[in-house]
C-alpha cells in the first residue's frame, strides 16, 4: 500500500465509498435520502473519472466526466426530486426484508462479487483493476435494492445506481467504454427516467399508489387491489 501513488489511493477511496453508498441505499427508508445518495454516488463517480482521466491522460474520460456531471450529478437527481414533490411520495414502505437481514445478504453478495472479479482483475492491465470487484458488487447491490423495494420510485433509483456501477466497472476494467456506447447509454437512461416519470403518474392514476405490487394482479383483481390500496393509503 505504501508504494501506491496518492492519486491511486484517492481512487481506491472513491471505490470504497461507492461500495458504502450502495449499502446506504440498500438500507435507506426515505426516498428523498435515496435520491440524495444517488447524487452523491454520481459525484463520487465524477471524481473517480476525473482522477483517472488525469492519471492516464485519456481525453475521452474528460468528456464522460462532463456527461456524468450533467446527467448523474445534476439532472437526474433534480428530475427525481421534482417527481417526488409532484407525486408527494416521501416515504418508502418497509422493505421486504428487515434492514439487518438485507445488510447480511448484501455482505454475502459483496463476497461473491469479489470472488467473481478476481480472475477478471488478474487479466486486466489497468491501474484500477482491483476496483472491478467493487463495481460488480455495486451492480449486484443495486439489484437487491430493486428486488427488496415495492415502490416504483425506489426501483428506479436502484436502476440508476446499477447503471452507475456498470459505468464504474467499465472504467476500472478498460478505462471507459467507447464514446458512442457511453452516449447511447446516457441517452437511454435519460429517456428511461423521463418515460418512467410519465409512467409513475399513470400508475398512480390507475391504482392510487406507486406500489408495484398492484401490477402483479390481473385485470379482474385490479379493482380489489385498488380498494385495498385506498384502505392502505388512507
Amino acid at each position, binding site marked *: 500500500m505504501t508504494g501506491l501513488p496518492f492519486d491511486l489511493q484517492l481512487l481506491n477511496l472513491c471505490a*470504497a465509498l461507492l461500495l458504502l453508498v450502495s449499502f446506504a441505499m440498500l438500507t435507506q427508508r426515505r426516498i428523498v435520502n435515496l435520491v440524495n445518495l444517488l447524487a452523491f454516488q454520481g459525484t463520487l463517480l465524477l471524481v473517480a473519472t476525473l482522477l483517472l482521466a488525469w492519471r492516464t491522460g485519456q481525453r475521452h474520460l474528460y468528456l464522460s466526466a462532463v456527461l456524468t456531471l450533467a446527467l448523474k450529478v445534476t439532472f437526474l437527481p433534480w428530475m427525481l426530486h421534482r417527481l417526488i414533490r409532484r407525486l408527494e411520495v416521501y416515504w418508502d414502505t418497509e422493505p421486504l426484508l428487515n434492514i*439487518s437481514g438485507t445488510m447480511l445478504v448484501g455482505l454475502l453478495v459483496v463476497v461473491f462479487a469479489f470472488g467473481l472479479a478476481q480472475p477478471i482483475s488478474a487479466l486486466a492491465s489497468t491501474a484500477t483493476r*482491483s476496483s472491478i470487484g467493487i463495481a460488480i458488487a455495486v451492480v449486484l447491490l443495486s439489484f437487491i435494492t430493486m428486488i427488496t423495494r415495492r415502490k416504483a420510485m425506489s426501483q428506479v433509483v436502484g436502476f440508476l445506481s446499477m447503471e452507475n456501477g456498470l459505468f464504474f466497472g467499465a472504467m476500472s476494467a478498460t478505462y471507459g467504454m467507447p464514446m458512442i456506447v457511453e452516449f447511447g447509454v446516457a441517452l437511454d437512461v435519460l429517456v428511461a427516467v423521463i418515460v418512467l416519470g410519465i409512467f409513475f403518474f399513470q400508475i398512480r392514476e390507475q391504482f392510487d399508489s406507486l406500489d408495484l405490487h398492484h401490477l402483479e394482479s390481473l385485470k379482474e383483481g385490479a379493482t380489489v387491489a385498488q380498494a385495498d390500496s385506498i384502505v392502505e393509503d388512507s
Partner: protein
Amino acid sequence: MRTLDLITQVLEIIAALAVAPLFVGWINQCRAWLQNRRAPSLWLPYRGIRKLFHKDAVIAERASGLFRIAPYIVFSAMVLAAAIIPSMGTALPFTTAADAIALVGLLATARVFQSLAAMDIGTAFGTLGARREMMVGFLAEPALLIVIFVASIISATTALPAITENLATQHLALYPSLAFSAIAFTLVLLAENARIPIDNPSTHLELTMIHEAMLLEYSARHLALMEWAAALKLFNYACIGFALFVPWGISTSEGTPLTLLASIPLLAGKLLIVGAGLALVETVSAKLRVFRAPEFLATAFLFAVLGLLVHLLLGA
C-alpha cells in the same frame, strides 16, 4: 526489559485509574454545556466514588457470593485491560501475556460477571438489564473483533502494541479500510459503554435502561467499584481507538523518557477531543428503541466487514 518500560507500564495503569473518572466528568461537563445547562464539577465522579466508599454496604438477603465478588472481578478485568492497551508507550512488559483477541475476551469476562451478578438477586430489573446487555454484547463483539482483525492484517500481528507501533511509524497513506473500521469502532464504543443511541447513562427510566438496571442492587463500595469500572471501560475503549486509528505521538519501543513525557499531553489532548466529540454525538442523537439496537450494531458490523473486504480487495 528496560526500566523505562516498567515505568511506562506502571504509569499507564495509574493514569488509567486516575484519569478515567475525570474523563467521564469531562464528557458530562461538555454535554451540560451543549445542552445549555450549568455544568457539574469536573471532580464530581471522584466525589461520588469517595462518598460511596465511606458508606456501609447493603446487600440483598438472597445474594450469593457471586454478587459480592463480581465488582472486584469486573474492576480488576478493567485494570488488566488498561495494562495491556498502549496509551502512552508501546513497550509494555505485560502485553506479551495477552494480544488484542485476549483483550476482547477480557472485556467479555467483565460483561459476563456483571450480567450474572445482576441476575443473581432475581429482581426483574436486574434480569432485564442483564439480558439486554448480553444482546448488545453479542452483537457488538463480532464487530469489535473484525475491527481488530483489519488492523491486525495490515500490521500482520495481533499484538496490540505491535499494531500501534507499526501504524504509528508507517509511511502516511489513505486507508479506506481503517476509516470504515474507525466508524465501526465508534459505533461499538457507543453501544458497549451504554452511551446514548443505545442506552442513556444519566437516567433510571425503567423501560429503557440497560447498564443502570444491572447496578440497581449494588450499594456503597461495590457500587463505587462498578462505577469506577464503567469509567475505566470507557477510558479503555477510547485508548483502544487511539491505539488503532490515531497512534501518532505514542512513545515507541525505541522511546526515551522524553518521548514518554511528550506522549502524556498528546494523550490528554486526544481525550479532550474525543470527550467533546462523544458529548456532541450524545447531544445531537436520540436514544434508539431497544428493538432498533440490533440494527445499529448490524451497521457497525457492516462497516467492520466492509473495511475487511475492502482491505482484502484493494490492499488499502
